[in-house]
């Protein structure tokens, strides 16, 4: 697999390509990858590019430099501001969250070290979370008089259920990678140092699956399937389209001819 580095090592968000997988690294290790304004801007830029304009990228991995994921917002940036100013500043994290959750490509979190505040929000917004057993998570917002942000309201409840999300947000308590697996926050738990390798493995599986079906499924889940009728409506609307896709027809042919399918997106 060829490896291309985009930009130099001082970039606050780095992107490397490994075949069809893009590895996005939050790179501000001296502040434990704090989610500063500059990082938010760069992350949005790169995610948008990868999700919507890079055909060679089929899946993403999100991770942090310096053996830690992201320790949260940059508290030194929290100066008093006007209400309208805050509303504007809130826009960007929400756009990032939306991109991750409803974009067409799967994104896998590889978490080592701290994932707190915005860090836990970013991990929760991913499709799958691979966690070091010693990773440390917390929705610590309420302790500093803040609400959870970057979509955590939605993404935490999705992952661990409404009541557990309520408990974690209200108590602001810490949990580690082992508990993360138990409560459904993480999909897989590994030895410290192994999260990236395991995440790449999963991303590779996503990259090998039909791209059109993947994109449609992700969009359907993001819209939210709150009732049985919504599920039925969604599948009745989308499935006929997928039945006519090249990938589906190739899969059917491969099945009948007893061979492996070779997927080419429409």
């Amino acid at each position, binding site marked *: 697999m060829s490896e291309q580095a985009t930009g130099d090592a001082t970039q606050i968000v780095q992107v490397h390509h490994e075949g069809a997988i893009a590895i996005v690294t939050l790179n501000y290790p001296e502040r434990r990858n704090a989610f500063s304004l500059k990082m938010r801007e760069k992350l949005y830029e790169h995610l948008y590019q990868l999700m919507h304009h890079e055909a060679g990228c089929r899946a993403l991995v999100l991770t942090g430099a310096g053996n830690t994921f992201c320790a949260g917002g940059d508290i030194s940036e*929290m100066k008093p*501001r006007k209400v309208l100013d805050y509303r504007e500043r809130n826009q960007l994290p929400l756009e990032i969250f939306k991109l991750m959750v409803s974009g067409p490509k799967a994104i896998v979190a590889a978490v080592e070290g701290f994932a707190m505040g915005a860090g836990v929000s970013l991990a929760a917004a991913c499709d799958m979370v691979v966690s070091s057993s010693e990773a440390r998570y917390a929705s610590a917002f309420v302790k500093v*008089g803040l609400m959870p942000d970057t979509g955590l309201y939605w993404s935490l409840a999705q992952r661990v259920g409404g009541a557990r999300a309520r408990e974690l947000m209200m108590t602001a308590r810490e949990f580690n990678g082992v508990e993360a697996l138990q409560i459904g926050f993480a999909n897989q738990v590994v030895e410290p140092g192994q999260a990236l390798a395991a995440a790449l493995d999963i991303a590779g599986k996503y990259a090998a699956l039909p791209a059109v079906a993947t994109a449609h499924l992700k969009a359907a889940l993001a819209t939210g399937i709150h009732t049985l009728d919504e599920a039925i409506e969604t599948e009745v609307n989308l499935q006929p389209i997928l039945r006519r896709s090249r990938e589906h027809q190739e899969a059917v042919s491969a099945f009948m001819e007893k061979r492996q399918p070779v997927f080419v997106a429409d």
Partner: protein
Amino acid sequence: MSVEQNEAPEGAGGQPDTDANVAEIVQVRREGEVAIVTMNCPSRRNAFSMKMRVALIDAFQRLVHEDAATKAIVLTGAGGHFCAGGDLSEMNAATPTLLELRERIAVAVRLFKLIYAGTKPVVAAVEGTCFGAGLSLAAACDVAVSSSTAKYCCAFVKVGLLPDTGLLWTLPQKIGGGKARELMLKANVIDAAEALRIGLVNQTTEPGRALDAAIKLAARFASFPPVTLALLKASLVTAGNSIEDAWRLEMDLNPLTRQTDDHTEAVAAFMEKRKPVFNGT
């Protein structure tokens, strides 16, 4: 209205049970910023009679909306039991009209909302039996601490009723839709270990120690900025519903909380490496 009104004592510090207190069907006392609400009808294992319901509403109404000194609430039961459920002999005695029944259920719903959707955190301390409406009350709390010998049962369907007092919502929220459907249909009894495993309770303790642990937890809540905690709890009722709801709540509430004195104090305390002092504004 309940005949046995219980006046919550003002001021800090624990209050011993006065003679009047002991006879109350719902007792209220305070330890620091934590109010302890005790269901007190041990001879009926604290059955959820109409009288009990009304007394609980009075207590919660006062603690949540009128008592600024209370920052967090613990709900528990006297006599080694939490609550064994609805009062079946009361239900057997008379069948009210359909409209009267609607009103009675609305009463339970009012209580549920005070606990689940109110502005102060509520911790359940469960010993012994937690069946039917008892389960509903425990599930309505933000967190539950359970004695290792407590027993849980969603008993409603066995007596031909629907799970009520919010349990149709809260049980799936706590333990997931599949497990909730199972417990509601089978109406089987589960123990504390299972309750912990599936997420119905958050912590288990030695028998007799659930209340102490619950008070500790409640004190932790009491140490957080009250306005933020209240906004958080209120917003969580609808926040998980959809991305749009979550987005709107974040956009609307974050700027608000950043304007509070308590947030400014928290940031200052962090930068100065000291403990914050919150005053609730």
